[in-house]
């Protein structure tokens, strides 16, 4: 084979790989839609929000399909976790760059990387055997929104901490020297110069952690109690969209199964929006 035919062949093989890899997302969306179609046809979008309850049935006409309690569950758990994890993550990054002695920073960063690699099912298990009984003593039943928020915060903390770490590392040294020359204190520098300069990187980090919080399944499933209800306090058990899928997929049939794919489609929609937002902010950073 001549050089140029070999090169052309290689280019085609590589293109085929890339197209295949790129099409996975499309395939996912297509199959979610295909599987969700029966429920959407037999029940329609509106019933997922207006039905009196979530008592799905294999025939849409015989069941009720209200997903709103689960949507609220996801929303509260996600919001709580983001509110807890974001400050902790940003402060962790500040610690790495401005407060920790050099030797310690290395270890702390390593620690956060390790935290990032621990699987959610392990956190969930730990929550189940340690955290839930603890909360139960304060306010039964223990398996609750609060437990979910706590575990979810630990889960997403490494994401925001590592993103914030990268964002702070990108702040030009000149800014710091400028701030030092003006006699700003460490906190003054951080609040007045560094955090604003790292803003877009921090936003991207928050968006990514939000995505993880929405999509997290196992940890939440194991500590939240999984009662289908809109929570009225932190101590109420909740069920999230993801947990709902994991719990019911095993036996769901017909329109019930299809309804679970509808909730998968909702999750997918949220993630696409978040990625688009991250992209938008990221682009803003490139152009200043």
């Amino acid at each position, binding site marked *: 084979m001549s050089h140029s035919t070999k090169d052309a062949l290689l280019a085609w093989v*590589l293109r085929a790989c*890339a197209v295949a890899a790129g099409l996975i997302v499309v395939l996912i969306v297509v*199959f979610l839609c295909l599987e969700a179609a029966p429920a959407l046809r037999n029940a329609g979008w509106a019933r997922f929000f207006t039905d009196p309850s979530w008592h799905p049935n294999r025939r849409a006409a015989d069941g009720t399909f209200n997903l709103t309690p689960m949507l609220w569950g996801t929303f509260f758990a996600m919001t709580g976790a983001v509110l807890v994890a974001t400050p902790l993550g940003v402060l962790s990054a500040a610690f790495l760059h401005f407060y920790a002695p050099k030797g310690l920073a290395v270890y*702390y960063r390593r620690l956060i990387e390790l935290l990032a690699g621990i699987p959610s099912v392990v956190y969930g298990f730990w929550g189940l055997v340690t955290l839930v009984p603890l909360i139960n003593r304060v306010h039964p039943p223990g398996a609750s929104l609060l437990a979910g928020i706590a575990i979810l915060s630990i889960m997403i903390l490494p994401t925001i901490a590592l993103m914030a770490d990268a964002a702070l590392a990108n702040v030009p040294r000149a800014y710091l020297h400028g701030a030092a020359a003006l006699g700003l204190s460490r906190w003054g520098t951080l609040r007045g110069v560094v955090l604003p300069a790292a803003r877009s990187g921090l936003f991207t980090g928050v968006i990514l952690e939000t995505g993880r919080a929405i999509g997290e399944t196992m940890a939440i499933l194991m500590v939240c109690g999984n009662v289908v209800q809109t929570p009225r306090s932190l101590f109420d058990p909740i069920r999230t969209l993801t947990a709902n899928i994991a719990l019911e*997929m*095993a036996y769901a049939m017909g329109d019930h199964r299809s309804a679970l*794919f509808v909730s*998968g489609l909702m999750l997918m929609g949220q993630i696409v929006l978040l990625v688009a937002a991250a992209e938008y902010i990221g682009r803003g950073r490139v152009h200043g």
Partner: protein
Amino acid sequence: MADARAARAADAAAAALVWSSAVLVTGVFAWVLFDLVRLGAGQIDWAFLTGEPEDFGRGGGIGTILVSTGLILGVCMAVAAPLGLGTAVLLAEFTPDGSLLGLLVRRSLDVLAGVPSIVFGLFGNAFFCVYLGMGFSILSGGLTSACMVLPILIRSTEEGFRSVPDEYRMGAAALGMSRAAALRHILLPAASPGLVVGLTLGIGRALAETAALIFTSGYVARMPESLFDSGRALSLHIYDLSMNVSGGDPRACATALVLVALLLAINGSASWMAERWLHRKVSEA
């Protein structure tokens, strides 16, 4: 004067806040590890690592589970590695900045990286298990995980190629070598650290996965006889023991400890290799 004092107080308060959050994070991590070791370490011995689960997992070991997990990882990597390598080479070596194909593929991988694992589970169930007729099997689970780890794998491999100096490409071209030959003999070896790091991170990610496997590789804890058998992954074993088997906690904890130890080793070596060879930090973020 008062202003200066206030600023100094704020500075001290901020320092206290920063330090206490670092201590809090470290503390929580230590707490989790401590609990796992306290509850699980005593049960781990050779028999546990090699035995078959008995009494729904309350007794016996995790030997068959380890085998299933290994097979799922094997399928996952056998598919993801070539596909990821090809895509990474295309993105790093054959796509000029701003090419439409490159742009689309990158965008799509960004989304793929954010897809929740439970959605992978739904997709894997609908596509591999039902549509392609593979049923609940190690094959379905491995293929689903392959889709999941592709973005990490590609990103890392692509970085490996980008860290190869242009001089090699120019030198090879100036000697009249084809791009295929330059790639095979020079660029690929030089970029292999990125590939290895990517593979390691990918294995870590697949090993940590649970939600995507529940409805694809299934629950069966027996020794799998072929890739078409259902096989229970380590993470799923932990879930099942702690949620569905009363009295399963001790074994669940021991399994969790094994899983965490494996992951620490895998991710630790990935970041060690990345810092040593690629001079960069890795993260799953």
